[in-house]
């Protein structure tokens, strides 16, 4: 998956486990950018009696680098607090919840938002209500409206939302982690001598009808890049975005109070910029270490981007399908195309009218050129599909990042840095075979853009 349960330790800590980051110029408010960080992966909607929530003991942050040094220049910090109305009932709610201040809602969560920059720390909002989880027709009968009321306006033209959403990321998880099976091409897999796939098959979206918890903030572009008109060739128009979750250093199970006690400074336990980097490129023994590191130190992981294991596996697992990629692998040439896409941004001159380069610092950040207007006819393959407003120029909620990265790793983007290289025909066709059509909940046209979460009553059906 993008980054769901991607490392051994963070897989045991769902509330601190970042799953996806999105950053895009808001299509309905193009003077703003929307930044979304998702946590608490793979939620079965029927999650009672303790429905999913953010961690009160986790420090959630969305960072923005505005000068390409791999360090945050602006950080939005989110701190949650759960409040129970009644400790003597086992119920999350004791009747229908029709408003965010409903007396029937027992376990509520609130949060504060702070903005940290070189100018200091500013409290943007406190006591902001999250919506409840989507329980069902009796408990949350007007869910769409109820959740919409949890979009809060803050000073400075900022909007914020934190709460449950439908998972918008799609992937055929069941196949790709079955030794890189891609159902549309499974008949071409080496199959280890077994005769299990004789025909292609459509992909299966393993994350469909699951929920996630989103922290979404919409910010005027000028608040990040400074005032003044920027055009797409201006390096100052490019921002780097990532999220992190931190926990206090020490946890002690307080057996007398039946809860964990935390102490010490906050330490980063999870981070996420570009999708699939820690999931697919970083080796198992370094994934949790990677999670603790800041992007500015990503040079130490650069070899896993420039010589990705998956690029070596594709020709081995699909014999004869990727001969040019196999030759490229054997040459030992570093994949400068992947470094550009994931670690530095794409310099000007490689793709017509496009750049999201942030300089020489190798840092895994989602880079967004904020001067590029939202597309009227988006292509889910983003820049690969000729749509400069999509991944890897930031990331929209519907972008097919699995296919884009698969194709890039398969060699489709290598001609950007080596014009003489001829990608394999399969490189422009390879996919896990799922798309937005496989996401049951519709994406929204307005903030927070991810769909209304699936209700526990209706899912699983």
């Amino acid at each position, binding site marked *: 998956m993008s980054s769901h349960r991607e490392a051994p330790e963070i897989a045991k800590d769902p509330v601190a486990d970042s799953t996806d980051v999105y950053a895009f110029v808001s299509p309905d408010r193009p003077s703003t950018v929307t930044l979304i960080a998702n946590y608490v992966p793979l939620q079965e909607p029927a999650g009672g009696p303790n429905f999913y929530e953010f961690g*009160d*003991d986790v420090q959630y942050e969305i960072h923005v680098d505005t000068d390409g040094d791999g360090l945050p220049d602006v950080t939005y910090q989110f701190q949650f*607090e*759960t*409040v*129970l*109305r*009644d*400790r003597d009932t086992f119920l999350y709610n004791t009747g229908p919840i029709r408003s965010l201040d409903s007396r029937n809602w027992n*376990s509520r969560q609130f949060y504060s938002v702070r903005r940290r920059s070189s100018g200091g720390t500013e409290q943007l909002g406190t006591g902001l209500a999250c919506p409840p989880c989507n329980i069902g027709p009796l408990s949350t009968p007007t869910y769409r409206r109820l959740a919409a009321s949890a979009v809060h306006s803050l000073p400075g033209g900022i909007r914020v939302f934190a709460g449950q959403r439908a998972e918008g990321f799609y992937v055929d998880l069941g196949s790709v982690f079955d030794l890189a099976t891609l159902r549309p091409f499974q008949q071409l897999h080496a199959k280890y001598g077994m005769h299990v796939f004789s025909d292609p098959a459509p992909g299966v979206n393993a994350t469909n009808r699951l929920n996630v918890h989103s922290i979404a903030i919409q910010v005027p572009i000028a608040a990040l890049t400074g005032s003044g008109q920027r055009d797409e060739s201006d390096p100052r128009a490019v921002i780097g975005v990532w999220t992190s979750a931190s926990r*206090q*250093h*020490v946890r*002690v199970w*307080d057996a*007398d*109070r*039946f*809860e*964990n*006690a*935390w*102490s*010490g*400074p*906050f330490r980063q336990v999870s981070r996420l910029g570009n999708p699939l980097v820690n999931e697919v490129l970083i080796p198992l023994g370094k994934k949790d270490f990677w999670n603790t590191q800041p992007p500015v130190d990503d040079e130490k992981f650069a070899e896993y981007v420039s010589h990705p294991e998956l690029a070596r596996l594709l020709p081995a697992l699909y014999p004869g399908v990727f001969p040019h990629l196999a030759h490229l692998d054997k040459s030992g040439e570093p994949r400068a195309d992947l470094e550009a896409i994931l670690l530095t941004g794409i310099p000007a001159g490689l793709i017509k009218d496009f750049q999201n380069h942030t300089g020489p610092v190798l840092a895994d950040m989602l880079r967004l050129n904020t001067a590029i207007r939202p597309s009227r006819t988006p292509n889910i393959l983003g820049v690969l599909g000729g749509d400069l407003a999509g991944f890897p120029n930031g990331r929209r909620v519907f972008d097919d990042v699995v296919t884009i990265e698969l194709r890039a790793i398969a060699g489709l983007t290598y001609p950007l840095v080596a014009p003489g290289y001829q990608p394999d025909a399969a490189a422009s066709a390879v996919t896990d075979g799922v798309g937005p059509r496989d996401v049951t909940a519709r994406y929204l046209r307005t903030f927070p853009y991810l769909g209304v979460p699936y209700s526990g009553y209706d899912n699983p059906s």
Partner: protein
Amino acid sequence: MMGAQQHVDIPASLAGPAGRPVPVSRRSVLRSAAGAGAVGAACLVVGGALGAVPAAAATRPARRAPDSGRAGADRVVVHVRDARTGEIDVFAGTSHTRLRDPGLAAQLAGLMR
């Protein structure tokens, strides 16, 4: 070896709720640990966590939040990282300091034997 009354080096950032330094001395650490019956082979918790009893639950605020650093600033956690070298971590609130005191470390470790 330090004298029994000698205070461990607690920085000003480890201030208690009222802004006073947390009164952590080697003796108080040992006394608290002994009184608590010890909470681990090399980890001691001093402060509010020891005072709470289940019966207090009914009068606790409805806020379920965390006994995290924000709420538990009076808690001090002492972690003997390595009894042999005397490396000791002290955590309080959102602060952390590392000491090197082989005598204290050995004494704390000895409590568990």
